[in-house]
């Protein structure tokens, strides 16, 4: 079972929900739970738990290496590259590795076999067990600074899933490639939103995305009590279930800011788990 916690808008409480839902599911079902923090540009789920037995694994993607001796400067690699990562000027290729998606198109196009496939490091996957609850393990990706290729690293984090546990995915915000990569293979998606104009605007886009992916989903409204009731109206009109509502609470905010998970007890996920 793979449940993704996503949102359109950032800062709605995806990590808050992902971590507290994981703790609640483990307590109720007594089954092992795996948290996969796929927000590789800004992973933060690990801040709320203490990890031990941590392990690190370098994540790489395919890239290219050019052999200047063999290259005749024909420019076929540049023409073949749909990611515009290669320019050939004065018969010399200029390769921008950060633009390369590792598709190998240039390797196929090169008549001189001057291009070979190499592995390029893009980030790290960090894994560990939650110290005070060894039935929960957590894995997160950390994208190298300046790196733009988030989806392959997300794939490396997703590969940490194991068959006997319930998986909770903390998705990146937004609805672009990284979010789609994180949620596309999920059995269920929970969209976290807040009852504000921004929350509603981005929720609509997220709903559209998850419907295109044809994954069943529902909504959790966080910080209930602020804003207005337009998110409720939207969900009613679109026939979207609201799993639970987390009230705006100073106590939760204070505990959150200290990196403590005690706020998990303030939330009622009984219905969500069922």
């Amino acid at each position, binding site marked *: 079972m793979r449940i993704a916690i996503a949102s359109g808008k950032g800062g709605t409480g995806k990590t808050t929900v992902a971590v507290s839902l994981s703790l609640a599911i483990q307590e109720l079902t007594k089954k092992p739970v795996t948290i996969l923090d796929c927000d590789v540009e800004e992973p933060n789920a690990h801040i709320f738990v203490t990890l031990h037995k941590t392990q690190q694994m370098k994540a790489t993607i395919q890239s290219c290496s050019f052999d200047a001796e063999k290259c005749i400067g024909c420019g076929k690699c540049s023409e073949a590259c749909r990611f515009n990562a290669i320019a050939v000027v*004065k018969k010399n290729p200029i390769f921008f590795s950060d*633009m390369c998606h590792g598709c190998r198109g240039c390797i196929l196009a090169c008549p001189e076999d001057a291009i070979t496939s190499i592995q390029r490091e893009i980030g790290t996957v960090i894994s560990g067990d939650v110290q005070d609850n060894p039935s929960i393990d957590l894995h997160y990706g950390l994208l190298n600074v300046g790196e733009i290729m988030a989806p392959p690293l997300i794939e490396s984090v997703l590969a940490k899933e194991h068959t006997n546990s319930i998986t909770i995915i903390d998705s990146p915000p937004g609805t672009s490639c990284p979010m789609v990569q994180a949620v596309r293979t999920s059995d269920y998606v929970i969209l976290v939103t807040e009852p504000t104009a921004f929350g509603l605007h981005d929720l609509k886009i997220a709903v559209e995305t998850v419907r295109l992916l044809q994954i069943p989903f529902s909504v959790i409204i966080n910080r209930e009590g602020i804003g207005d009731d337009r998110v409720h109206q939207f969900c009613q009109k679109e026939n979207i279930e609201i799993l639970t509502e987390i009230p705006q609470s100073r106590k939760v905010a204070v505990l959150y800011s200290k990196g403590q998970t005690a706020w998990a007890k303030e939330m009622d996920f009984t219905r969500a788990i069922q």
Partner: protein
Amino acid sequence: MRVAFCVQNDKGVDSIIDSRFGRSPGFLVYDTQDDSTTYITNAQNLSAPQGAGIQSAQNITKQNVQAVVAHNCGPKAYQVLIQAGIEVYMTQESSVKEAIQKFTNGELEKATSSNVPGHW
């Protein structure tokens, strides 16, 4: 000497300079020898998902130009142009005619690096 300008449309020397390089709608190549202009469309790069600057720079290298005049130039486009031996000049002018004037008078500053980050 042949000089390329990033332009919004093809109106010869009356064209307006576009503030972008990679996603400039076209390039106007001006020849200082005979005052002639040639327009090159850059339409294929306007919808490029990424790397518009790189490909625009590569296209310019095929036009046998010695200099590019632009409002802005990003790091990857700059690298391609410099490796092709093309000089980059910065201008604030919006009219090609006035920029040509300043260029031929030697009043434009030659860039020694890109002046904007990528995705500017």
